[in-house]
């Protein structure tokens, strides 16, 4: 999917993650993650974000994620919502992600 503009999904509430995307032409996914559970889950959160972007066909992007202990399903949902908002598209079925 092609990112067209900066987009955000999620909140700063406990149990959520706020994901901000900016389109990029090159350089792959530049991810900046801060998490309240960085030490225990930082590695896994980063893997989930990168995996979700790859599945949605996003190759280059600047990603900022501020995590407040979100579960993997929440992280996937927030990343996907940000990608669709940035691309200006709506998926047929969210569940398939």
């Amino acid at each position, binding site marked *: 999917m092609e990112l067209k503009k900066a987009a955000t999904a999620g909140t700063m509430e*406990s*149990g959520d993650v706020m994901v901000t995307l900016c389109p990029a032409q090159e350089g792959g996914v530049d991810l900046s993650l801060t998490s*309240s*559970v*960085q*030490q*225990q*889950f*930082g*590695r*896994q959160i980063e893997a989930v974000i990168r995996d979700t972007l790859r599945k949605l066909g996003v190759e280059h992007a600047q990603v900022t994620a501020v995590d*407040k*202990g*979100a*579960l*993997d399903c929440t992280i996937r949902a927030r990343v996907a919502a940000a990608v669709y908002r940035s691309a200006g598209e709506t998926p047929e079925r969210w569940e398939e992600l």
Partner: protein
Amino acid sequence: MTMDKNALERIPHIGEIRHRGPFAGTPEKHTATFQDRSWRQNKVVGSLEEAIRRTGLQNGMTISFHHHFRNGDHVVNQVLDTLARMGFKNLTLAASSLAAVHAPLIDHIKNGVVTRIETSGLRGELAEEVSRGLMDCPVVFRSHGGRAAAIRSGELPIDVAFLGAPSCDPYGNANGYSRDDSLLACGSMGYARTDAKYARQVVILTNHLVRYPNAPWAIPEYDVDYIVPADDIGDPKGIMSGATRYTKNPKELLIAQTAARVIDAAGYLYDGFSMQMGSGGASLATARFIREMMLEKDIRCRFALGGITGQITAMHEEGLIDRILDVQSFDLDAALSLKNNRFHHQIGATYYASFLSAAAVDQLDFVVLSALEIDTDFNVNVLTGSDGVIRGAIGGHPDAAAGASLSIVVAPLTRGRIPSVIDRVNTVVTPGAVVDVVVTDQGVAVNPRRPEVAERLRAAGIPVGTIQRLKEKAETLVGKPDPIRYTDRVVGVVLYRDNTVIDTVRQIAEP
């Protein structure tokens, strides 16, 4: 009249009768009125510096404090600032606990004024710094019962105790409230009683000098050497808030309800039972469900023990609880009840939980305790957070768990993304050998040591699973956390209630 020295020699067996020689007359009797006398001849000294000088405090000695003012305490910082100004070094600070408000100790540690700490817990910036290696000598963590035992046995000798008191008369009768006025600063001063009794010298800091006799007292005058009037011993807002409210969190209510059902099904809710509720939303809320069951069964509780809240005192005033044994009043309602109700008793730390003597915890039917982490061997951690940083206090956790016939540990299965039930707790505070039942919002597990309890719960229709299953459930939800990165350096030593070393806390590795 005096006694002739030779008269003694005519007494048979005089060598075996212990005496202090012949009567030699009395000192001059005083004739001033009691009123007049009590404001002139007393233990009040002009300043903290003067009191410190008179105690004979030396470098390298041990000073102690109580934590009844919680996060509103201004005594520890005030005394340490003064000691630093007077040039003292190399002191051991032995507090019954320390809170976030004590962050200024960091500078006194860096400057060598304080080189050792003994406490039940640490929080805030000071805890963070200790976890990052602030001190050469590890902090010693003891339970309330373990501390009381160590002070009495001489393992933790106290040279000078500096005890803040919301009321004190000119001879040293001190308390956490006063019957002469409406003051209700902290209620019980149970933990300070041990320090007052065993410290070599005792200094009371008070913002409220009242008339003799300040009865009832937490600390009797014969345990007190000096009294320092101080403008400010604490911030009332930090010392105590109004009534502790029942939690509205549905998860915690579910846990509390299940815990109450477990107690009943296990056979410990009978006419004349005894109980303790630990701090924390779910454990406090258990009292509410216990109350409903008591009304239904028409039974009474013989005594409630420990840190006391308004929920317990309301049940006492309702006639459901005969006696309250209060080592620490958690809210204003509890403090008010201690002042007004004759069967609401103030007890000291030794009476509460010392293993060296029969203690009140040994008479408990059940206790409901919170936990940060529980492992598959039922070990409990209440001291270090999931990031390995010190952020809590042992309190009476292991004491009550060991003493109660049924110890129930309550926790949500996960807190945000952090699992509460895991393979191995970061720090063992209470060993699984004294933990009987774990209650979470996602299920109940009974220690295999207590098959009869599991049997009774199943018979009552409460689903009982294994602790391994709870751990797997948590993992399915949140994933498996990466292990905390520590260095090899030990920054904290955790003692069990018998003062044996049960675990250590290591310095966290910088990312």
